């Protein structure tokens, strides 16, 4: 225990601490953009770094169009992502650490898309006079369209090639309409195409060489991961008529080529594609639809909410079963034979599935959908044009610039670093657009423009802030859905209704405003402890400095989550430092309201990633 402040002159105390032998944590540099960015966990977790709390506040205020435009700027497809995003932000949400569930960030995004006014006049326009550079985008999915949007407004002439009849790529072909209706895709892809982007639909690009050697200044490849993995087990060939690859089947359903399925269906696989398959099958006449997965329920790749929805629709998910054989009667599928397994983990945490030795299970069915993974395929890229592939068949890329070994060819989306999700594709589209712009202007691709960052006090009066700092104690709102009987009959009928304005406001109020940062000024602090006493989550401590591990343990509430930063001040008058554990700060501003000298202030941190065309900082 230290005895600071006890009968020793202040100056001596300060010297003692500074000259102490122990290693000390250096004062936090809050001027580095990453520091506060990381505190905004949702924004940090979003691949496109969407300023989440900012748009959520706008939704609470009813400014839906403004909220939409913040999203549109960062993630390009707010209406689409508000329905089908993988939501890396939600597991990161601070609310989830102090409450049962995180803020429904994804569905709030849909709210701003649903309730916005006509935003056409807010969209940027492409300049009349082009800059003379021609860019080919292969594929009309989210990555390509993002590149097209970012570059078209700079005066580039963009041409998008796609084998389909309309833009959207896998957003259109893979995601069932009851989750993502066509009109949403049409609208948001339309905003981009209307920027004067030339489209060549129904055009299968058969040769990259032609593009590279053609009259293009740069080529962007956003062709996705188009090949579904197959289950190569006995009976596959014989019963082929009744076994389909999940993503191909979904595309056929999406475009109306497939309208029926047998009554008894087994879906193999545990990812989101499997969930889409089983739910689609339920809607096309499947009565006994089940999902069978090799792994345990928790380890399944599907998002928890997608699993929940499948279960809600009466689809059982059966785990720890490895398909062994397609059982058939002269080519007529009768069932699938499964081996029961259990999971074992080695010292490195790698899993292996060990047969339990129990008898195999035969599940009867009439049709099987195989949704056990997706692969990249580049049959149209010639092997001798200087574009290198690695041993997994993926293009060799600079991870930051997304440039391939052929300088004028760039990749993005699932085609770049393997299958991920739409939001990652959009983020990579932005990065590739920056690279292509730098490349076309003959600049170094490494000199990348920095994000726009702002930090400004939100104080309006003695107890008034520009944000609503009262922390909502309401529970997460469930999105209302249409009656199941109705939606199971019509595969095109969107299941979710979306939040109404009142629910949206209540849900938006649950956001803790993590972008309103607590900023501490050493020289005005009188060490009265008011902030320590009022903090609802006890995240502020005044103590002697020390090594980080030691310091974390000595806080009023020990800071056990190591990837959450400690905000450490410079040395105070008594020789102590202020230490704040960012982990569970509610950003309620009570410390700042209680501070008699204004040593604490609530300041809004706003970070927007650079877009193509932004100049890099001169160094």
């Amino acid at each position, binding site marked *: 225990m230290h005895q600071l402040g006890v009968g020793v002159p*202040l100056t001596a105390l300060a010297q003692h601490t500074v000259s102490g032998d122990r290693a000390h944590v250096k004062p936090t540099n809050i001027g580095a953009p990453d520091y506060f960015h990381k505190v905004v966990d949702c924004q940090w977790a979003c691949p496109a770094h969407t300023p989440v709390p900012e748009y959520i506040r706008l939704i609470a205020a009813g400014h839906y169009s403004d909220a939409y435009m913040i999203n549109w700027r960062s993630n390009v497809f707010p209406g689409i992502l508000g329905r089908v995003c993988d939501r890396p932000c939600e597991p990161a949400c601070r609310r989830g650490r102090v409450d049962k569930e995180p803020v429904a960030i994804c569905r709030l995004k849909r709210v701003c898309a649903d309730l916005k006014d006509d935003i056409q006049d807010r969209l940027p326009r492409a300049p009349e006079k082009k800059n003379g550079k021609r860019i080919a985008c292969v594929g009309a999915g989210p990555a390509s369209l993002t590149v097209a949007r970012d570059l078209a407004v700079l005066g580039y002439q963009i041409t998008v090639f796609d084998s389909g009849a309309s833009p959207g790529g896998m957003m259109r072909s893979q995601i069932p309409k009851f989750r993502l209706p066509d009109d949403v895709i049409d609208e948001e892809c339309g905003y981009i195409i209307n920027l004067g982007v030339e489209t060549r639909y129904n055009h299968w690009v058969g040769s990259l060489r032609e593009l590279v050697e053609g009259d293009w200044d740069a080529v962007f490849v956003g062709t996705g991961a188009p090949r579904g993995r197959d289950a190569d087990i006995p009976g596959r060939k014989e019963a082929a008529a009744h076994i389909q690859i999940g993503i191909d089947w979904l595309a056929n359903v999406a475009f109306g080529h497939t309208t029926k399925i047998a009554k008894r269906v087994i879906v193999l696989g545990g990812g989101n594609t499997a969930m889409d398959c089983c739910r689609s099958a339920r809607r096309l006449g499947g009565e006994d639809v089940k999902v069978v997965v090799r792994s345990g329920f928790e380890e399944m790749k599907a998002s928890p909410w997608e699993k929940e929805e499948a279960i809600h629709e009466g689809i059982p998910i059966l785990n720890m079963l490895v398909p062994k054989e397609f059982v058939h009667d002269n080519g007529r599928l009768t069932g699938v034979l499964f081996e029961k397994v259990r999971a074992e983990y080695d010292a490195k945490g790698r899993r292996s599935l060990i047969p339990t030795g129990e008898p195999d299970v035969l599940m009867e069915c009439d049709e099987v959908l195989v949704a056990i993974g997706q692969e990249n395929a580049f049959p149209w890229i010639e092997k001798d044009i200087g574009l290198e592939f690695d041993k997994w068949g993926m293009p060799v890329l600079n991870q930051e610039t997304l440039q391939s070994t052929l300088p004028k060819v760039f990749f993005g989306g699932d085609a770049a670093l393997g299958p991920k999700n739409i939001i990652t594709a959009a983020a990579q589209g932005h990065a590739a657009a920056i690279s292509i712009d730098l490349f076309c202007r003959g600049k170094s691709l490494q000199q990348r423009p920095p994000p726009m960052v702002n930090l400004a006090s939100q104080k309006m009066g003695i107890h008034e802030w520009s944000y609503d700092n009262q922390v909502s104690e309401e529970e997460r709102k469930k999105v209302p859905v249409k009656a199941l009987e109705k939606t199971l009959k019509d595969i095109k009928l969107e299941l979710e209704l979306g939040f109404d304005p009142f629910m949206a406001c209540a849900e938006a109020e649950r956001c803790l405003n993590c972008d309103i940062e607590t900023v501490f000024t050493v020289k005005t602090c*009188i060490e*009265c*402890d008011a902030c320590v006493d009022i903090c609802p989550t006890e995240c502020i401590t005044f103590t002697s400095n020390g090594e980080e591990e030691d310091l974390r343990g000595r806080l009023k*509430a020990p800071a056990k989550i190591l990837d959450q930063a400690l905000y450490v001040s410079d040395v105070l008058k008594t020789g102590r430092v202020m230490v704040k554990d960012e982990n569970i700060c509610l950003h309620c501003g009570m410390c700042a309201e209680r*501070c008699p000298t204004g040593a604490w202030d609530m300041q809004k941190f706003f970070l927007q990633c650079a877009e193509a065309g932004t100049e890099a900082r001169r160094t």
Partner: protein
Amino acid sequence: MTYLAKPKLLRADAPRNTLGYTRRDYEGAISTLCAGCGHDSISAAVVQACFDLDIEPHRVAKLSGIGCSSKTPDYFLGASHGFNTTHGRMPSVLTGAALANRDLTYMGISGDGDSASIGIGQFAHAMRRGVNMTYIVENNGVYGLTKGQFSATADKGSKSKRGVVNNDTPIDLVALALQLGASYVARSFSGDKEQLIPLIKGALRHRGPAFIDVISPCVTFNNHAGSTKSYDYVREHNDAVNRLDFILPRDQINTSYAPGSLRRIVQHDGSVLLLRKLDKDYDPSDRVGAMNHLQERHALGEIVTGLLYVDTSAEDLHRHLNTVEKPLNQLGDAYLCPGSKALEALNASLR
């Protein structure tokens, strides 16, 4: 000062005491005192002490008088019994409550105005009668509610916010408490919870009148240069005689110090006061020595803090008066009011 209630959201790993309560369960309403008021730190120290001692909030009675300090019982132990008396009359109301029900833990919260001016007589008699209570004075040297006039504890020569010099001799409540027979006497500082919390714990578990004078800077009217009750002045002139570790009977003592540097005092309930000496000659069992030390240091402009005096063998008011052990509310009507015949017999016996 804030108008918002503290959000109820809790960290998942918020510590719980053996009763299953979190610290938050010992809080009260949101404070309406000025931002930075030392009194709020004292409230926080009371919360922590009661949490650590596994005190059931409904077994505590907190009483106070009038003033900034006397508002604070609203800001801690929201689930306890509370009573705001008239100005300076907390000690007598508390004495009455304690006589009626000795099973509760009594906490009297007062200020320098409430106890050293209008209520000084009440204060003196509660101490000398040996009421079993924890008497905390939140001492800021000014009348905050009436805009900062000097109170009776303001040091001679100290300056008001407007530069007026105080010419009156201060009342030292600690010296008075020692002289009047308090059996647990301490002084502390609102800005030093590491010292204050164990002192409150020791007082709550002490039998007899426990008095703690807590210097608590008034940020609005008495935190300037020239004040002797400002954060800076108290920090610079704080002369602690010892550091207390309070240890419950169930807890293990696992601190080790050089021989002679530690003093171990066992209270009547088995709780242990471990005193680490900072002044090696100071003896907290010597009432007269304590009074002398206090005067000497005060003459040098220093503020003596720590556990200044403790007598664990002291008896309290109930023992002196030989009162009934059961709380009056459990005795039943027939016992409490035995009727006119019993009264006549009693009167006859006194004739």
